[in-house]
């Protein structure tokens, strides 16, 4: 009987405890920087698309929600002709981000993407592409790649030696 009264008293004291509720639309929950939410395509510091259309993200995707078609511009730089993510299938596992060799595809801390029509959850390239470098500021794939695609000449990239003239016999 006394323990019952004690229980009631302790429960009553909860009136003055801090509440666990977060009043959502007014009060937002804190999301960690690496929280896996909406998927975006980032740009390099010069404003070019980072995506090189390698299809690794589409291959890594366990629910096959990524579709793209790679193409090349006149300078030999690869980019996706279209890039489509069906967010009604996406499970936000982040495998695409892990698979991406150029840090182009990234998951950002945003989950507020409710839609009334299912078709509106299919994001095209213009919906995905953002004017930001995302989590890797200063990174430009074509500056560290050996390839000349209009960004830098061969041998002029970061930590890259000039090409060796294999026909010369001089050391």
């Amino acid at each position, binding site marked *: 009987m006394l323990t*019952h009264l004690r*229980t*009631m008293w302790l429960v*009553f004291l*909860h009136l003055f*405890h801090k*509440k*666990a*509720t977060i009043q959502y639309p007014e009060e937002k929950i804190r999301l960690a920087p690496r929280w896996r939410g909406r998927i975006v395509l980032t740009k390099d510091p010069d404003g070019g698309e980072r995506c090189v259309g390698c299809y690794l993200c589409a291959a890594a995707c366990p629910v096959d929600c990524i579709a793209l078609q790679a193409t090349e511009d006149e300078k030999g730089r690869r980019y996706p002709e279209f890039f489509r993510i069906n967010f009604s299938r996406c499970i936000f596992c982040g495998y695409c981000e892990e698979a991406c060799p150029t840090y182009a595809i990234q998951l950002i801390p945003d989950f507020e993407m409710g839609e009334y029509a299912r078709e509106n959850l299919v994001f095209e390239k213009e919906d995905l592409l953002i004017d930001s470098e995302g989590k890797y500021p200063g990174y430009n794939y074509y500056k560290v790649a050996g390839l000349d695609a209009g960004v830098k000449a061969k041998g002029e990239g970061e930590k890259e030696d000039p090409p060796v003239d294999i026909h010369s016999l001089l050391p």
Partner: protein
Amino acid sequence: MTIMQHIWIVLGVLFVLLNVAAGLIWVERRLLALWQDRLGPNRAGPLGILIVLADTLKLFFKEDWIPPFADKWVFITAPAIVVGSVLMSFVIIPFAPSVVVADLNVGLLFFLAMSSLGVYSIVLGGWASNNKYALLGALRGASQMIAYEVFMGLSLMGVVMLTGSFNMGAIVAAQKDRWFIVTQPLGFIIFFIAGIAETHRLPFDIPEAESELIAGYHAEYSGMKFGMFFIGEYLGITLISAMTVTLFFGGWLGPAFLPPLVWFIVKTVAFIGLFILLRASLPRPRYDQLMEYGWKVLLPLVLANLLITGAIALWIRK
């Protein structure tokens, strides 16, 4: 008192009670939430009070389904009985010196009779549903209410002995010097426990035990018929709180800086809060524990209380 005054009192009491019963939906949800470190419904209207309106509208628009295997007319009557019997009990409660619907000289007996009638709604509702769980709930409800009815009445006899009257006004007046909680603490505790069992609120909600009987006797009810059971339950809480206040806590008596009606309301609201606190904190006993507790502990206790009170009352009077 003129007839018009009387009619106004009846209508006023009815209006206030039905609104209180509806408002308790909000009060209970908010209080339970606060005691569970949540906030509860706070969106609709100021402090979320319009949740009552939303809930009521929802209940009205639910499909009002009568199972084809049910006994139709009994099924329909049962929810009305609980609300009717509880509302009838309110007739004898003196809310303030002259605000009472019927100042019966057998007021307390009338209350006991009416609250016993409430068991019909459970038994008929559960039986007419023609459903195993509902029938089990009804059986449990019947045995629980009959068991607890016995010493609910007996626990009040101490008060009657000290007052010398069944009239509620006289009982309140007899507490002018000293509330009956001082002279009848055991009577109060037992009456309150019996009251919880009588309204089948947690922790004694055996007849509707959600975890084992789904919803017990009202498993088949939907729409406003279910709503009537709901309102009946909240009215029952208000009734037991009001009765506790009238019988043991001096009714409308109180220091003069507040009018008597306000004192009555304040005390009643405090007991309603206690009912909700009980629900928030205590787990449900097993069915056999409930019956054992009733017959083997509370009944002897209440008889001893009656014996001692009677002896002292006789000794003082001599």
